[in-house]
């Protein structure tokens, strides 16, 4: 029943899009039939695939850096009220600051190369990773740590066997949200400096037909869904006791 409804939903969506596309024409809204043709062409275009792959690399690097900074920072904030008071105001300020506003000065500071995209990705996603980890660290029950201490667990042991498993769902959620923002800001950064996927989108927008542009949007959607799914799979492998990790619902 659920599957049927979902398929109906998708079919209806495609049908309305097709009718609207035929009505307005390719120049305003290419129908799915022509987008599908473009998509096949895109899949066969080695140069385009290389461009997409090359532009994903800085997003992944930036995402990993953001996790490496954000997770320990969030855990520290969650476990230490003093550090929290010191850092929290800045994190809450930066999380509401649009990365787009920082782009012009970043271009001045690091140029428009590979590291520019990395910097934008880090600056946009690290706050989400930090705050989500913080939420988890704050919720760790004192009693669990006390039990560990009563049995003579060392600091390292307490961290590895009590805090880490308790934090895990939050680390995962943080990584998920961080990844969403990493991909978003990657596209944003590349639109500014007209390179990679952003450059391809820009080039496609010069076409008279919107088919190629929409095909690129579908391709980006695929990348986003795949990345999210992959992260869920990885989490299932790392912590099989945590169920529901691979659900692909938006955070």
């Amino acid at each position, binding site marked *: 029943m*659920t599957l049927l*409804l*979902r398929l*109906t*939903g*998708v079919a209806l*969506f495609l049908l309305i899009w097709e009718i609207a596309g035929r009505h307005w024409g390719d*120049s*305003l809204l290419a129908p799915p039939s022509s987008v599908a043709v473009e998509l096949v062409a895109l899949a066969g275009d080695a140069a385009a695939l290389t461009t997409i792959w090359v532009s994903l690399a800085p997003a992944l690097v930036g995402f990993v850096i953001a996790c490496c900074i954000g997770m320990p920072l969030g855990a520290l904030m969650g476990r230490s*009220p*003093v550090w*929290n*008071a*010191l*850092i*929290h*105001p*800045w994190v*809450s*300020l*930066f999380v*509401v*600051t*649009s*990365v*787009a*506003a*920082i*782009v*012009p*000065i970043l*271009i*001045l*500071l690091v140029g428009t190369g590979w590291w520019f995209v990395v910097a934008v990705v880090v600056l946009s996603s690290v706050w989400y990773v930090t705050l989500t980890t913080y939420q988890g660290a704050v919720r760790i029950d004192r009693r669990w740590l006390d039990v560990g201490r009563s049995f003579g667990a060392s600091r390292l042991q307490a961290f590895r066997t009590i805090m880490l498993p308790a934090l895990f769902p939050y680390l995962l959620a943080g990584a998920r949200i961080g990844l969403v923002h990493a*991909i*978003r*800001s*990657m*596209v*944003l950064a590349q*639109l*500014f400096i007209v390179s990679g*996927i952003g450059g391809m*989108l*820009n080039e*496609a*927008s010069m076409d008279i037909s*919107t088919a190629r*542009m*929409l095909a*690129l*949007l579908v391709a*980006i*959607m695929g990348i*986003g*869904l795949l990345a*999210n799914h992959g992260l869920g799979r990885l989490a299932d492998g790392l912590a099989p006791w945590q169920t529901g990790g691979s659900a*692909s*619902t*938006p955070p």
Partner: protein
Amino acid sequence: MIGTRFIAVLSVVAGLAVWELIGRLSPPVLFSPASAAFSYLWHQTVTMALPVAIGGSLATLAAGFALSAVVALPVGFAMGRVYWVREMLHPILTGIYAIPPAAFIPFLIVWFGLFAHSRIAIVVIMCFFEMLTITATGAATIDRRLLDVARSFSAPRVQMIGSVQVPASLPFLFTALRIGLVRAVAGVITAELLLSPANLGKLLLDSAARFNTAGMLAIIATVALIGLAVQQMLLWVERRVLRWERP
């Protein structure tokens, strides 16, 4: 709690001091001290350039945010409460949600051009799906017991929605509005920078063109403060409306 608040204030002051120090030590084309940024802000306020720009940006923000909220909240609510609506829209929304909002910008330019309409459209795209998803999740997780009580007293459907379901999902609606509003601020700035420069985006790009890092940092700070201010404003409204949520 006074202790931690004191540390927080101290941290902000220390941050400004570090900014000042780095600004003074580095060449002005790379980074400027806080004092220079403040004097830029003061200058722009006196000449009315800044208030006009902020006003223009806020107008775009209000238009785009209102348009999204008017559609996203009812549709999200329906998605959360009605099984077939949820299941039919779910795969499509999951897909669209996976597309970075910025990627729609070239497409929106084709439709709406480079000026005010397009800016509003970008704001809508940036905050619509966020609000829709949160509202739908909230509406789907209303406490069953509340609904059961209403049903036991055989409340009519209108009353059921009006006096049970809507108040019960208000906390989520506010969260949706708050996160949507912050995303909308990001949308305004993105639009003002990527389309034909306007308002705050224009001030930022003008500063960038002259390597005026003081001006750029000042505008970034303004944008950050606008984001923080709108968020706090909604939190304040939320606390007034949702008196029953906290003692």
